[in-house]
């Protein structure tokens, strides 16, 4: 079906950083940050026109360095944070900064794709997250569902909680915690939990996953040896507060109940190389998206551990007789955990996958060679979940 065909967009630079525009809930928009050591780096704002299957893009220059991580404010469409490499001849330092994009780009592109190359605009720097004392920045997380005033960044072995003041023009370090231990510890990734009033975050370092309380900045749980090798990414189930997914170099995706960390609830072994990214669908948490350096993106249906293990529940009194029957039929065929689809449009390692913040049935994946692919959940499954 034409509608299910993937849409591919090519960047001229290599890229690792991808994020949906979190604050945008109407238009499908993704931001991609490029990596180039020799040219000016860019942030591509990619608008996807769902009706016409057309991609519109705007390019912002990001001249300070190559982008390793990008995230957008959940409150302000125009605000984003990047982690970038500042390179001198002998030293590479990863810094983080909060930026604002030009006003007219905030909500969709109004220009034709033709003059994009001639008309590149620049980001407006709001503030730097000063990390001179803390080491290389691995990622920046915004407080989910917050007002865009709180961010956490991971720098080497430090967790830094910042308050953005004066309409984000100033970042004040409000508290921090450091992971102490043998050897050189380094956080690889982290996620801010949307549950518990946004007081928890989870971080990954080496083979362990740790949970932290942002109020006390203390560790609240630790999954030692969550993966056989390095843990690359993690994500919280948006609907089940104790559930957490992690992925890593052992090619596995594991699902954890943070109340009992001795054994994973479930393990997926579908990829044939390191899994770099795992993402829960924001609305239907049985849909799991993973990207891997085997160049594949896999969409899995983990119904058994989702918040809707028996399908979408409808209140009885809302049902007419006919619907009643329909409901029964659905109960008769319980859904199985399964791989829904494997997407093979990428030629190089996929380092980032993200669901759209506007359309829960749409997602983007980015491979190192700069190819961005937008895909949809298969229509049959979509209707199966909805009806």
């Amino acid at each position, binding site marked *: 079906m034409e509608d299910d065909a993937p*849409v591919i967009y*090519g960047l001229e630079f290599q890229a690792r950083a991808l994020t949906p525009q979190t604050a945008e809930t109407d238009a499908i928009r993704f931001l991609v940050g490029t990596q180039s*050591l020799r040219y000016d780096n860019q942030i591509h704002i990619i608008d996807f026109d769902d009706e016409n299957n057309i991609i519109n893009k705007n390019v912002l220059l990001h001249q300070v360095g190559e982008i390793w991580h990008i995230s957008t404010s959940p409150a302000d469409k125009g605000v984003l944070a990047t982690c970038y490499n500042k390179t001198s001849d002998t030293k590479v330092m990863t810094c983080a900064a909060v930026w604002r994009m030009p006003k007219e780009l905030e909500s969709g592109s109004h220009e034709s794709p033709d003059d994009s190359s001639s008309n590149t605009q620049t980001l407006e720097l709001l503030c730097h997250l000063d990390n001179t004392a803390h080491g290389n920045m691995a990622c920046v997380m915004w407080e989910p569902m917050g007002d865009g005033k709180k961010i956490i960044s991971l720098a080497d072995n430090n967790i830094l909680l910042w308050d953005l003041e004066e309409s984000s023009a100033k970042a004040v370090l409000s508290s921090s915690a450091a992971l102490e231990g043998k050897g050189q510890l380094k956080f690889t990734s982290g996620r801010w939990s949307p549950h518990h009033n946004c007081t928890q975050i989870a971080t990954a370092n080496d083979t362990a996953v740790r949970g932290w309380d942002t109020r006390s900045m203390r560790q609240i749980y630790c999954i030692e040896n969550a993966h056989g090798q390095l843990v690359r990414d993690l994500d919280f189930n948006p609907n089940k507060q104790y559930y957490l997914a992690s992925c890593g170099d052992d090619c596995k995706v594991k699902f954890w109940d943070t109340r009992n960390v001795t054994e994973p609830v479930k393990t997926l072994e579908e990829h*044939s*190389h390191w899994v770099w990214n795992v993402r829960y669908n924001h609305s239907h948490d049985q849909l799991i998206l993973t990207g891997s350096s*085997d160049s594949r993106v896999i969409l899995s249906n983990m119904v058994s551990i989702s918040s809707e293990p028996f399908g979408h529940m409808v209140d009885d009194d809302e049902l007419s007789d006919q619907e009643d029957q329909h409901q029964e039929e659905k109960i008769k065929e319980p859904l199985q955990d399964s791989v829904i689809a494997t997407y093979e449009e990428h030629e190089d390692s996929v380092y980032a996958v993200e669901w759209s913040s506007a359309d829960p049935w749409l997602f983007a994946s980015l491979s*190192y*060679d700069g190819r961005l692919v937008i895909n949809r959940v298969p229509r049959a499954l979509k209707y199966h979940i909805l009806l």
Partner: protein
Amino acid sequence: MAAVTAGSGAGSGPAGSPEATGGSTGGGGWRRPHGPLQRYYGPSTAEAAEAAPDPTDINGPHFDPEVFMTKVRNECPLGQLLAREAALGREIRALDSDMQTLLYENYNKFISATDTIRKMKVDFRHMEAEMDDLAANMAAISASSARVSAALQDRHRRGAQLAGVQALLRKLQALVEVPGRLRCWAGTEPARALRCHARARAVLRHYRHLPSFRAIEDESHAIMADLARRLRTRLREEKLDPKELTECVEMLLQLEEPAEELSEEFLSQAGTRLEAELAALEAELPAADPSGTATTPPPPASDILDFVDRGSSAFVGTLCQLAGSYRALFGGDTGRLEPFAAALATRYFTLLERRLALERGLGDTSLLVRALDRFHRRLRALLELLPAGADAAAALVARAARERVDRYLRALQTFFLGCLGDVRQALAAPRPPGKEGPGLPDLLATLAASVLGQLKAVLAYVQLFTARDVAFASLPYFKGEFCVTAVREGLVVAFVRWLCRTARGFADGPAERGAPAAPPALLLLLARLCLDYENSTISYILTLTDEQFPPQDSGPAVTPGPALCAEARAAAQRLLDHYVQVQGAAVAQMLRKSVETRDWLGTVEPRNVRAVMKRVVEDITAIDVQVGQLFEEGVRRAQSSDSSRRAFSVYSSSRAPGRYAPSYTPSAPMDTHLLSNIQKLFSERIDIFSPVEFNKVSVLTGIIKISLKTLLECVRLRTLGRFGLQQVQVDGHYLQLYLWRFASDERVVQGLLDEVAASAAHRCLDPVPMEHSVVELICERG
């Protein structure tokens, strides 16, 4: 003609045939002179009638000399006539002399006959007189005999009367003696007394109206009642062996005691006795532990065979005997016997079961089989009268057998684990330098052989259960279900399954969480073991089992060999994949650390290949040796002529066109990595952690792929200076030089290394590659 022959049969003379006589040369016809005589005396009319028409036949009755003469004269020449005349003359003379001889002979005989008749006439006259004398004498004799018998008759009658009286008197004497005898025998030989009483009883009853007889009867009754009383007491109080018991009850029955009551007493007495037997058996068992948390009971005093022996000879024997006599005594009514026997038999079975449960060890199976056999045999007698027990007994034997088979399975499993422990130890044992420990093939062979040997031994033991001389082997259970369900499925198949599962466990199990992981060599060894099982061992074992325990056609479904093989193969595959992952991860870890910890910006110009690369090559070589010990070489793709070229190679194989029609939106005016993108477009996708084949090359390829892909991903995370790039270049070339020969497809290695080089170039601030000749020089030196 036929009639002529028949007629002359009596005389047998061919001379009489018309041919001979009717021939014109009739002169030759006189060969047997008696022929005409015989014919003369006995000619049949038919012959006469037949021969009549020929008047020229000189021997025929219708001979007409005139005709003959005329015919001869007319027909014959003179010479012949003369010869004929002479011949006739000779014949006539011969006939005359014959006639004379006959006449003389017969004359003599006639004369002697006449003499004899004359003599007879004289003799008969004498005889008549003597007969008259005889008749007179006989009359006299009969008269005197009548007189004698009349005189004796009276005496004879008296004698007979006297004899009758004497017999009667003797009987009376016996009757009178009955009480005395009874009294005498009642104490010592009650049986004899009973016989005596039985004989006298009828008579006494008949004549009881006579006072004297009544007295006798009463007295004997009293004695018998006393006897009955005594017998009863004995029955009730004493411990009687079954024979005595039977006798006792039999006598009581003869005394016309009520059968109902007796049968009850008989059974209670028998019950007491059997209870005692059971108690004796039970005494040998350790006290039953009601809580079930038995500490290991002390080994039983006697072996199972002994126990069963005693049980069957004492208990079963007695029970049979008693049941037999019960039937004999109380007729076919077994309404009371059956529940009684069933209850006891059940208790016996329970005891036996408890005893069997004590057989925890693997002891001597033949002993167990013999014990069960004996049990079963002895029970057969009992079963004739207690058909309901048959099932229970068969079930008991079957359970015991099954239990034993299960125990063998556990023993096999323990054995295998023991073997594995040995192997692990052998693998872990520190080897003195220069001296290789036992090679993997040796370890594998030892392991496989000992496991197979053990399995065979177990099968041999189990086969005892179905041996031909064992009685219960002919039970339907042992013929069908035991072979299939217990042995084939429960023992052999279960063991193989367990083995595969256990082997898999090393791959699936605790690798990353907690417990120490299995050494890679063990994984490899087990993979090979499972593969061998799949290839040959399983079918061998199953064939062996089916031979020793032939399955019934209608038996329960069996696990087919191919299903087991598939399991073994899956286990082997899983193990080998895991081996690749473990080894790959080890090498990859080394590479990752080496890339992550180095400062690639500030590094100096490369002079050497980095030590870690040498280490990688060494490790992979060691793995190659290790895998080569157990797995075949495998197929390599044809190698290119120049194995060390370092240029982008556009691969010939193309990817299948995607199933989508992607709408490609070009974003950039120029693609900076056009070359690499085109190259990728046509290269095959490489699955890094993918299942490997069962050969050395495939395994090594898998490990190399994992290692190089790691190198690629790690380099991409770094930022390199000029010398950093050159170092990567040198390292890559070195790896290329030494690794291509391990991989199944050299191009895989090359492709990955190309990507590493390309990525390094991208990540380089100042991408000035090193001269290729210099790179080669460094590598050769290193």
